[in-house]
């Protein structure tokens, strides 16, 4: 049996959560102060998931780049490949907040969406 100590990243509390693992099966979670901590610890032990934020080039906008965010968490192990996809993209202003920039990023089911609106220059 393996034991891990994790820091929950769900909120600024930053709880220290202890997880007991048997292979890929979670046996127990302790130290979490809310249900989200338990869910996080279970997921984190098997496949860590994160929201990814970045920017894409925008033409004709008030700034040179547009901030973007994934609509859901994606596997931490896919960050590098996800960045490669994001780097290929260029969009044109005007853009509205939550507009889909990349649909279904690398088959994760998460979209990359605009995290703000951007007017034309």
């Amino acid at each position, binding site marked *: 049996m393996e034991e891990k100590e994790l820091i*929950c990243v769900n909120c600024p509390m930053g709880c220290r959560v202890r997880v007991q693992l048997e292979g890929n099966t979670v046996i127990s979670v302790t130290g979490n102060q809310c249900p989200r901590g338990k869910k996080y610890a279970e997921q984190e032990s098997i496949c860590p998931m994160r929201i990814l*934020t970045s920017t894409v080039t925008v033409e004709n906008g008030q700034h040179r*780049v547009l901030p973007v965010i994934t609509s859901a968490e994606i596997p931490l192990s896919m960050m590098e490949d996800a960045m490669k996809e994001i780097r290929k993209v260029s969009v044109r202003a005007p853009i509205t907040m939550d507009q889909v920039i990349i649909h279904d990023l690398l088959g994760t089911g998460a979209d990359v969406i605009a995290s703000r609106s951007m007017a034309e220059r």
Partner: protein
Amino acid sequence: MRHYQAVIIGGGSAGLSAAVTLKENGIEDILVLEKDAEAGGILQQCIHNGFGLQTFKEQLSGPAYAERFIRKAEELNVSVLCGTMVTGLNDRREVTYVNPEEGYVTVSADVVILAVGCYERSRGAVEIPGERPAGIYTAGQAQRYLNIDGYLTGKNVFILGSGDIGLIMARRMTLEGAKVYGVAELMPYSNGLPRNIKQCLEDFGIPLYLSHTVTHVYGKDRLERIEVSKVGKDLKPIPGTEMYFDVDTLLLSVGLIPENHLADEAGILMDVRTKGPVVDDNYMTSVPGIFACGNGLHVHDLVDFVTLEAARSALGAVRWLKGTQTADKVYKASAGQGVSYVVPGRINASCDHRVDFFFRVRQNFETAQITMKSGDKVLRTLKKKKLMPSVMEQLPLTEKMLGELEGDITIEVTEA
């Protein structure tokens, strides 16, 4: 001279929240002055998520959080003058500003709300010896270049200071293809939130060197190399512990200081601890009719608290405008043992509304015993686990406790 009911200096998270709250409470004739080309303040360059957990119960990016407030302000017809720099403020509540359209203008107001934000401590302020090459930036400056202007400031990076912006930039620059060699923190504990240590450093295998600092920088035109040393209990570098990193970029994330030159100019009493104005339970400064909130008052770690505090300061301004506030006996609120500061710092004896104190501890506490006293009388005590300087704490002074005040208020924290 054009007269307004309220002039708000700063159109960031604090200014927008104050403006929205004033409008919602019937103060119609207001003006927001913003130096940047658009409203939103520092949120516009904080493209990472984690904003709004308290305000909206969701994890938004900084720009998305800002956009919600910008829209709300637009719906309420708040006039925001962007590209406008405030150059003067006096104790008669006259505000002087300059912009390309109107030139140099002075206006007056019944109330002025300072929502001016903070600035970053620089290399000069932390005194790093060495040459003066290009490649040394404050973390927030590099963040703006990358997230708004689209320029990566370097390829091989080291970060001094474990403040949250530095940690966020360590992850951001790594994702953009830079190699981040490490983060050095002078103190034996991190100044950033634990979640940022995890998701910005540990996720990417970036080392955190606690009790270390940068002791020399080298480079003729561009930064070429830095020297990092371990420090002792006295925070002085220990000879013989030097490490060298060949980097082209050094980011400084070594603290934020409230922007206070306007407050100084207006003769406002300042708090030596927070470096912002001293305010009362209405968030009014020592100059009647001038209020303060947000990072210009004291540096916050969550924007949600800035939003909340700015709304409270706007409600304080409304109370003062309605004349329900009488100048009377004042109790001081101050930091006792284990606490570095308390805001607000003054409570009017006639105060008839609940006041929420914000405070920070001086060092880490495993299980803290928090005590609030008035004179010698203990108003309340409570125990709380894991207090640290990087996390701002709150403690309410309830309406019931207001009736029990016997003297100046202190908040102290000890290990239980």
